[in-house]
């Protein structure tokens, strides 16, 4: 950072002024995490209640602060020596993350975990704080810092059910593959720094690179590192195993929040740091998108385990969102931000239904174990039906507008071939989404081979609130489109299109 320091300055430590409001969402979440962690000192019966309450309070406060920040950051600013951005894009992403986190806390409440409650909620809040920090990263250092911050929390969260072998296995896999992804990203950052001698995104864009080879290699590696996090094919191989093995509430969190954070950052990095290389990275992202669409959908067709199926489906959704990024336009960015909202809701909601079924049956949820569920648990059935139709892009859910906006952006950018792949992928995706509906309603519970754990299913009002909220967002985003798009348009004004 030699270039930034004023030459010959007498002060040894140059203290940057800190914009506490811009940092407030991560700080609120960290504070919640601290309280949640301290609840480990309380008597056992209080731990879960206190830590969960602290976490949900943290998420609610962080969401509120993010909304306030959104209103207060009409003109984007760069903070802390060019390392963080205070703008509406970050604030909007933080708001999405906050709501997602709150829904996940509600969905986790009924988890039958013997120990580790305090740690679980503390890690959840810390991971979200890391993501909230990550989305406002404006230079390569903070980018890596944010990435590692939330990734380390996720590695532990995935393995937190340490009495289950699959959870441990998933944790190890995620650690190894995720660590590799981070290393690739770090190496890429180093190459970009080597080529431009700059760390902050804006400066990289305006720098005169000493070596195009280094710069492009670095760009490719940064893209690959982020592609690991958004689970875009061919960097998705960890996704099915990790989604399946993790505690279901953690899977819900990863599928929605990690994607939101990583996609927003991917958009920001590519657009602000590499505008001159756009002709290269738009093609690369379009290719990633096409591969994800093909691989995710074909993979999902073959799955019997619902969590695995949703994992592949999340790969295919990554394909759709990459399509939006590859458009490299304001409309594409808006499409991405819009897409994230119903997608996060559907994803959290679907995993929440799976979690509830899992708790009821005490067994992994496969298609067979959904037989007749639509009739026996009508509200969960209708909710899962809504999420499946929404993911397939049916009307009365925001999914249809998500697809429409993404396709429009891609068509606008001239990628009509990508639109066609997307359309075919959607057609294929019906095969597995409607299959879930078929098992829900067109098979009878008598076919269910597994014995239900006994008695009526455990009451879980918190989980039902999370599911109802997810349905409300999924359906609501169909009717209330313009306000979301307006917010997305504001957010896009922070990026230099």
């Amino acid at each position: 950072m030699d270039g930034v320091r004023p030459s010959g300055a007498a002060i040894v430590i140059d203290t940057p002024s800190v914009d506490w409001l811009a940092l407030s969402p991560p700080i609120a979440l960290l504070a919640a995490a601290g309280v949640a962690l301290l609840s480990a000192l309380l008597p056992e019966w209080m731990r879960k209640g206190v830590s969960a309450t602290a976490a949900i309070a943290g998420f609610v406060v962080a969401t509120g602060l993010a909304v306030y920040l959104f209103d207060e950051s009409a003109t984007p600013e760069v903070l802390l020596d060019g390392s963080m951005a205070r703008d509406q894009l970050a604030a909007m992403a933080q708001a999405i993350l906050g709501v997602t986190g709150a829904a996940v806390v509600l969905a986790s409440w009924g988890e039958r975990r013997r120990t580790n409650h305090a740690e679980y909620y503390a890690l959840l809040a810390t991971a979200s704080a890391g993501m909230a920090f990550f989305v406002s990263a404006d230079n390569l250092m903070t980018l890596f810092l944010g990435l590692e911050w939330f990734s380390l929390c996720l590695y532990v969260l995935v393995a937190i059910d340490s009495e289950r072998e699959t959870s441990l296995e998933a944790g190890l896999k995620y650690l190894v593959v995720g660590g590799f992804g981070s290393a690739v990203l770090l190496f890429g950052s180093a190459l970009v720094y080597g080529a431009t001698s700059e760390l902050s995104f804006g400066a990289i864009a305006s720098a005169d690179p000493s070596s195009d080879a280094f710069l492009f290699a670095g760009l490719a590696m940064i893209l690959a590192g982020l592609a690991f996090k958004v689970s875009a094919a061919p960097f998705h191989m960890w996704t099915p195993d990790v989604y399946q093995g993790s505690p279901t509430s953690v899977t819900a969190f990863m599928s929605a929040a990690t994607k939101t954070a990583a996609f927003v950052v991917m958009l920001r990095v590519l657009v602000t740091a590499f505008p001159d290389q756009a002709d290269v990275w738009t093609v690369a992202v379009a290719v990633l998108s096409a591969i994800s669409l093909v691989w995710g959908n074909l993979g999902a067709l073959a799955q019997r385990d619902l969590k695995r199926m949703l994992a592949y489906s999340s790969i295919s959704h990554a394909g759709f969102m990459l399509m939006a990024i590859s458009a490299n336009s304001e409309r594409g960015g808006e499409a991405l931000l819009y897409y994230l909202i119903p997608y996060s809701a559907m994803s959290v909601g679907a995993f929440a239904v799976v979690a509830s079924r899992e708790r009821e049956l005490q067994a992994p949820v496969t298609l067979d174990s959904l037989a007749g569920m639509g009739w026996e648990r009508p509200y969960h059935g209708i909710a899962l039906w809504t999420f499946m139709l929404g993911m397939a892009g049916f009307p009365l859910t925001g999914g249809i507008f998500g697809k429409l906006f993404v396709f429009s952006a891609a068509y606008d950018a001239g990628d009509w071939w990508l639109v066609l792949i997307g359309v075919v992928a959607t057609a294929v995706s019906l095969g597995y989404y409607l299959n879930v509906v078929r098992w829900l309603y067109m098979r009878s519970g008598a076919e269910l081979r597994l014995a239900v754990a006994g008695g009526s299913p455990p009451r879980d009002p918190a989980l039902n609130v999370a599911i109802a909220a997810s349905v409300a967002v999924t359906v609501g985003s169909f009717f209330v489109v313009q306000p979301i798009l307006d917010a997305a348009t504001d957010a896009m004004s922070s990026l230099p299109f």
Partner: protein
Amino acid sequence: MLTTALIVFPIAAALVVAVLPLPRETTAGLAFLAALMEVGLWIVAATQYDFDEGGLQLDTTREWVESLGISYSVGFYGFSLWLAGTAVVVFAAAIGYAMWVGRDRSRAYHALMLLLTGAVVATFAAQDLLLFYASFELMLVPLYVLVGVWGGERRQAATVTFVIYTMAGSLLMLASVVAFGVTQGTFSLIESGTSDNVWIFLGFAIAFAVKAPLFPFHGWLPLAYREAPVEVAAVLSAVVSKTAIYGFLRIGIPKFPDPADDLSGLILVLASAGLIYGSVLAFRSPDLRGVIAYSSMAQMGLITLGVFAFDDLGVDGAILQSVAHGLISASMFLLVGMVERRCGTGELDELGGMARGRPTLATIVLLGGMIDLAVPGSATFAGEFLIMAGVYDQGWGYSVVVALGVVLAAMYTLRLISAILHEKPGRAVRDEALDLRVGELGLVIPLLLILVGLSVWPALVSESSFSGGNVSGWTGYAPLEPPS
């Protein structure tokens, strides 16, 4: 507002029916009442619509997604008002039939039927491309479950083929919707101009051809019509298929005049092929539902001939025939359901001789059959005649095909009538099988009465569908353009 009410009321009723924990009969009664009120709403709409003036009326437009030019825009033309009217009447009869037979899981069943009603009406009223696409898709959601849960033995296979075919079409349409909307800068059908892109037109045309279905996109039809609950089959053939006709008339032709003209030869040939092929299949079909199903396919071919005649007489006839076929095909499906309930089978081999001792059934089946085979003087005859006259300009061969279709219709319908009513009593016909009951008559007779009324006065529909500066030749389709 009235148009919005026509769309929202059944959907709201669906929610009420689904949520209220009422006993089965009460739920069904409530749904039937809602369907009847929907018919009442339509009658109010029809009285408010000024048929002399024609054009788009009862319209409402509200911004939905401003930045992309998507709006909630609904309204009726003369022809779409008639199509929507057919829809609500057929839905009332179908829901009434479901109430009569006491479908199990009543709340879910009736909620889905009402949701389907709302989706179909929305499709006929849509004046925005995205709204049209959304309602067109939305129809599939309840249909999928209705066929898959309450259908016959091979219902799962039926739903799978139905969904694969329909969605393949729909998604092509989605690509076309995106391409058209983005190029035009608006999705509004009122404000957008025309396009001469053949590929975009094809996306729409294939979606409509699957929905109708037109030859050779009818692969889903036999299974779906055979395995669906009979009143759902009635709705499929009477109403859902007509959304394709609306699509052609509101989007396919006015928005793509040149591609539609270029490809009209191909479409006319396929429609003719479908008319003849469907009629022959209907004649060869071994069961009641097969006859009605394939005859429905033949009739859709006929109606498409009228649409692509690009001529006043042709389109007028197409709408008259759509209304008449909607009503008669619903009546016939419901009658088939009544026969199947009495005999436990629809195999023609095992039926027969039902006229003896069942005078009401015999009379009603004969009356329905006569209208179905387009006996001169009936509404269907008027429709077929208009289409035949209209398509003459496109080539006399097409008129010959239509005439042949009329003859074949007589053949398969008479075969159907005699297989049910005449000949020796079949194995499945037991002496104690009852004549039609009052409840059943109450469902079928109103449909037939409307048809008799239309037979007396076919001009009621045919001359008001495109009134207000009538459709003048191909270039015109004047009523479909916005009133300046």
